[in-house]
């Protein structure tokens, strides 16, 4: 990559694979369960988290020398909350349909532990540009898993992608349904998100043996 130095591009690429916030660090699981029943909310959630983490990391990094260490967690929380409220308001004003669809989930970004984790672990000790890259990278790593899980859950659970029926119509018995295929209603329920994430972790670790812990 010409634009980024090797060290900088590592900040973006690492969270996508070998240091993924969801599958390796097991953070942000709660929102991965809640919103991945369909593909579209997964994608919008990924984009919103990317905005909040990118900007949040910049803000925290800019303030890193003046934040009193005693109240740094509260300061971080305020920064996340402010950004999330801004995202929520902007969506309500300019993408009203979408904001209704996501409703409470936008607010839930505040509780995403990846964000607080990166503020605390990275932005407080690094420069602005590197913090920004780290935020984008981690949000992308989170988003990739969300989209994979959302894809399988919507496809197998509802037989649709982005709301379009791709496997035929279960009511009129066309497409796959004509030969006896049925939607797996269990895929729509939260437990299956955990199981899908588990399968991703399994695949990832069997491909890269370095990730397997000793005990």
């Amino acid at each position: 990559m010409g634009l980024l130095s090797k060290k900088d591009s590592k900040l973006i690429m690492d969270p996508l694979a070998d240091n993924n916030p969801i599958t390796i660090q097991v953070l942000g699981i709660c929102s991965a369960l809640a919103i991945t029943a369909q593909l579209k909310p997964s994608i919008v959630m990924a984009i919103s988290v990317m905005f909040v983490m990118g900007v949040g990391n910049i803000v925290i990094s800019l303030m890193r020398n003046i934040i009193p260490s005693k109240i740094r967690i509260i300061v971080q929380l305020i920064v996340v909350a402010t950004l999330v409220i801004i995202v929520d308001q902007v969506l309500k004003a300019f993408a009203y349909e979408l904001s209704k669809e996501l409703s409470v989930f936008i607010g839930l970004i505040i509780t995403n532990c990846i964000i607080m984790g990166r503020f605390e672990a990275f932005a407080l000790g690094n420069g602005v540009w590197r913090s920004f890259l780290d935020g984008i990278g981690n949000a992308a790593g989170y988003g990739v898993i969300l989209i994979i899980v959302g894809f399988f859950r919507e496809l197998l659970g509802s037989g649709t992608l982005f709301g379009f029926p791709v496997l035929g119509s279960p009511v009129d018995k066309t497409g796959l349904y004509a030969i006896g295929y049925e939607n797996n209603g269990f895929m729509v329920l939260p437990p299956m998100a955990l199981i899908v994430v588990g399968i991703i972790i399994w695949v990832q670790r069997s491909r890269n043996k370095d990730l397997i812990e000793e005990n």
Partner: protein
Amino acid sequence: MAINTDKNSYTVIFAIIMVIVVGSILAGFANGLKPTIKANERYEKQQNILYAMGVNENEGANDVAFIPTDRVEDTFKEYITRQLVIQGGEVTEDDEAYLIDIDKEKTKAKKDDSYERRLPLFIGEMEGKEVYVIPVRGKGLWDAIWGYVAVDKGMTVQGVYFDHKGETPGLGAEIKQRYFMDDFTGESFLDGEAFEGIDVAKGNNDPKNTDTSDNEVDALAGATITGDGVSAMLRQDIRMYVPYFKSLN
């Protein structure tokens, strides 16, 4: 930098400044965007009312397409001929009846037994027939659900629109899908002369809703509580309008 960030006085001052800065940013955003958000909410109500009446831009069998926001205000004026407010037997016309907050009316009525709820009713004309659109509001599994029900003089459903605040995607959230909403068309709220309501029934065994005289539509799998919420919402809110419809016939 030579600031001692561990001093208590510094911490307090920092916190105060932080709160003021963040507070003003948020207040600025909220104020600046308020008119746009309010307008969006108004358009949405108009779109929903028109949709329930059957004024929409649906093309495919699964489409839920509203009149676009830039035209909705004019279309609303064109189709909705009268807006009524019913308050304890008295009927008045009010062009802004669609802005009445049903939630607030319900809370008021709950707090004060003598308060008669203001009931908005929208009357429009569709293919030469008078259609009455009734707003309804209730509780789903997680949060509020609401909708608009278009009926004719005899309280037979002409069309519905449902929406929700936070039902589970893929389960309860399906109440705003065509295959659920379309089932209501043709059902009647009356059983003979008496008010009966429409049940979202699990044991209905009639997924295509061919029997429209049973006061039942087929429930959504995995969304029992949302479905019960829809039944309860329809029963409670539409019952209030029965005296008005009785007076029509």
